[in-house]
């Protein structure tokens, strides 16, 4: 036994010494995440939802909000692989929950404990977690995206950042209505929840508004991925399955509101040579500029994307906190008017969209003016449809 011990000890020593020896030449060229020069005036922590940075959708949009805040207000993002650094006014840090997302609350706590002044939860799944943590840390301000609390239950240090997804979806629905050749279109939602129904209803309304053929029953196919939050948003195979089934039933354009699951839709669109509409970020642009051959191929099948400017919301709240030193507990809504939602128009889909762009922009103006009220629930959609007539 003694022999075994000696061998282990000697091995450990040799290895450690060897490491120190060859490591020394490399020390110093790494800026350690632990060192920061100068105290930042504001510390902002963000917890992404499942999928994290690099989901080419929802979380990435929030990340761009951080980058914008860093640029405009002079801040840096801690431990960021891209080394975003424009000054020391604001320190920003983001974390990602592990698979399944059961530790969202612990990550929020970790940021609150460590002196972050503003902590943002990206996604409705943070609803309960934010409420719990906000009660424990009354001096920290929290913000939640896509969810809110009933007025008598609203913690005094939480701001809700909501979007009028139906308005942006209305525009991409109109684009689908103009572009469809089979007069059949599809929709894939991550989960059957009121939030995702806002996307769906707006899309249907926009399509029906511009194309009477789509007012017929069965012309718009809709499906949801899963009733399990762990499955709904990051399940490309299931997304592909649903998309192929809708294409096979005659749809030639499908819009998704399913986060990472949407990658499956794009694969299906490429395979079946049909059209897809992205969501949250400008997914067509992101994929078209990817270094992967397959991504660029898929991008050619994305007409446009419904932009949900999570970045605008994130930037707005950081700026407000930075300017005033505090934010009131309130609900902020971002619609077309606030430039919080929209549709993607870029160098890659320009040719496709140019013929209909004037009409779409006219619709946009009508929504901003209040001439069109976009439905957000099934009941409102029925009324909207009744007004349109067959």
């Amino acid at each position, binding site marked *: *036994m003694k022999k*075994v011990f000696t061998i*282990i000890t000697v091995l*450990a020593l040799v*290895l*450690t010494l060897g*490491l*120190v020896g060859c*490591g*020394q030449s*490399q*020390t*110093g060229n*790494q800026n*350690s*995440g*632990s060192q920061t020069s100068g105290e930042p005036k504001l510390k902002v922590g963000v917890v992404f939802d499942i999928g994290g940075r690099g989901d080419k959708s929802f979380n990435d949009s929030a990340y761009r909000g951080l980058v914008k805040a860093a640029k405009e207000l002079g801040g840096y993002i801690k*431990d960021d692989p891209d080394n975003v650094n424009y000054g020391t006014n604001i320190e920003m840090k983001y*974390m990602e929950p*592990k698979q*399944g997302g*059961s*530790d969202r*609350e*612990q*990550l929020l*706590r*970790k940021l609150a*404990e*460590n002196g972050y002044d503003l902590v943002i939860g990206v996604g*409705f*799944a943070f*609803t*309960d977690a934010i409420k*719990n*943590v906000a009660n*424990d*840390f009354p001096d920290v301000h929290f913000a939640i995206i896509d*969810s809110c*609390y*009933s007025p008598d*239950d609203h913690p005094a240090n939480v701001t809700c950042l909501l979007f009028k997804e139906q308005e942006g979806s209305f525009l991409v629905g109109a684009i689908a209505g103009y572009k469809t050749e089979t007069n059949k279109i599809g929709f894939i939602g991550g989960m059957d*929840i*009121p*939030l995702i129904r806002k996307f769906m209803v707006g899309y249907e309304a926009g399509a029906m508004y511009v194309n009477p053929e789509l007012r017929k029953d069965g012309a718009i196919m809709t499906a949801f991925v899963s*009733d*399990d*939050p*762990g499955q709904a948003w990051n399940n490309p195979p299931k997304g592909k399955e649903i998309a192929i089934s809708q294409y096979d039933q005659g749809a030639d354009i499908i819009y998704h509101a399913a986060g990472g699951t949407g990658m499956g839709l794009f694969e299906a669109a490429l395979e079946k040579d049909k059209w897809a509409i992205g969501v949250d970020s400008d997914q067509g642009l992101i994929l078209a500029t990817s270094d992967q051959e397959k991504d660029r191929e898929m991008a050619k099948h994305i007409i446009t994307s419904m932009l949900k400017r999570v970045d605008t919301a994130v930037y707005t709240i950081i700026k407000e906190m930075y300017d005033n030193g505090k934010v009131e507990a309130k609900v902020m809504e971002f619609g077309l008017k606030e430039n919080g939602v929209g549709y993607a128009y870029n160098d890659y889909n320009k040719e496709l969209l140019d013929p209909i762009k004037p009409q779409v922009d006219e619709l946009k103006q009508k929504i901003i003016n209040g001439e069109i009220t976009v439905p957000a629930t099934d009941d409102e959609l029925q009324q909207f449809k009744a007004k349109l007539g067959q």
Partner: protein
Amino acid sequence: MNKLPKKKTNNFKYFLLSLVAPVVGIVISALLLFFLILLIRKGSISDTLYAFRVMGKTLTSTKDLGYIIARAEPLAISGIAAAIAFRAGVFNIGTEGQYYIGGLVASIYAIYFSIKSPAFHWLNVIFVVLFAMLGGALWALIPAILKMKKGVHEVITTIMMNQIAYTTAKYFVNGPLSGVKVGESLEPKTLDFPPSVTFHKLYDIFHGHFPFPKYIPLYESLFIAAILIFIVYIIIFYTNWGFEIEMLGTNPNAAKYSGVPPRLVVFNAMLWSGAIAGLINLQEIFGIKGYYTHHMTSGLGFDGIAVALIGYNNPIGVVLAALLFGFLRTAGYNLQFELGIPNSTMDLITGFIIIVMVIASVAMNRYISKLRRKEVLSGAGDR
């Protein structure tokens, strides 16, 4: 009689020898962690040393100590549940499903049948414990019966029961028990428990005379865990039933010949293992959340198997192993926070500790039995 003192020192020697495997496991894993962090931080020795300082700081900060205890609590219960079955030689890997159902049954009590007056809080807590145990035992009953009557292997049945448990919980949460209010949270969950049932924070119970900050999730369930571990310790080492289990687990044939009814003992061990497993996640359900959802922390049952393994199926060992896991998780969050090291690194290390320990303990067991044989032979020679 004059042999007694000698025997005692030998026992102490064996106790020390039994510590070799865990220590070797931890040391080698620490080494591996060193390399991993070095890899992640692109060869920066100073960052790697800083990472180890971060881990060390985890042990000196009060709030982190609180987190370690809070995270160890469900793991210790889970480890005890697994250990009881393992001692009897049955491999109950159904603790995962048993805690889902235990929590569910206790939640049904809490929502619909609990006493609403806050004066009866303690009664409610006792009922919650009893119903959670009932639920867990019920879920272990089917594999136990199949094992006893037909000899169906418990690994197959319990792992199937885990799947059924999760789906059952999902059905109840989305179906009959659903408490989701439109316009509020969209997470699937039951109605909130009445305040007379939800566990109080230890911080509030001790009116601030409590070493950890208020936000640390330590609840009355810590008492439940402590009492449970104490009782199991007594049962295992000081009762006939504990002895029967021990005998059956170590040598089934010898046990049979000395009149231990093997099937009955295994059946009981399964049921009690399930009953205890029902208690695993009371901390999260009745403390942290205050409602039931199938989206609670999963995997605690499987972690408990590892805890039991590292703790040698001994209640005290289980507690120590659970604390080790609690430390690794807490340190993992600190590493993720300070250095951006992925949290899953810690899961990897935990797995590595287990493998090294198992190898080391097999080697040690051989060595120990060799020593014992020598001792017996020399003892015989003395006489």
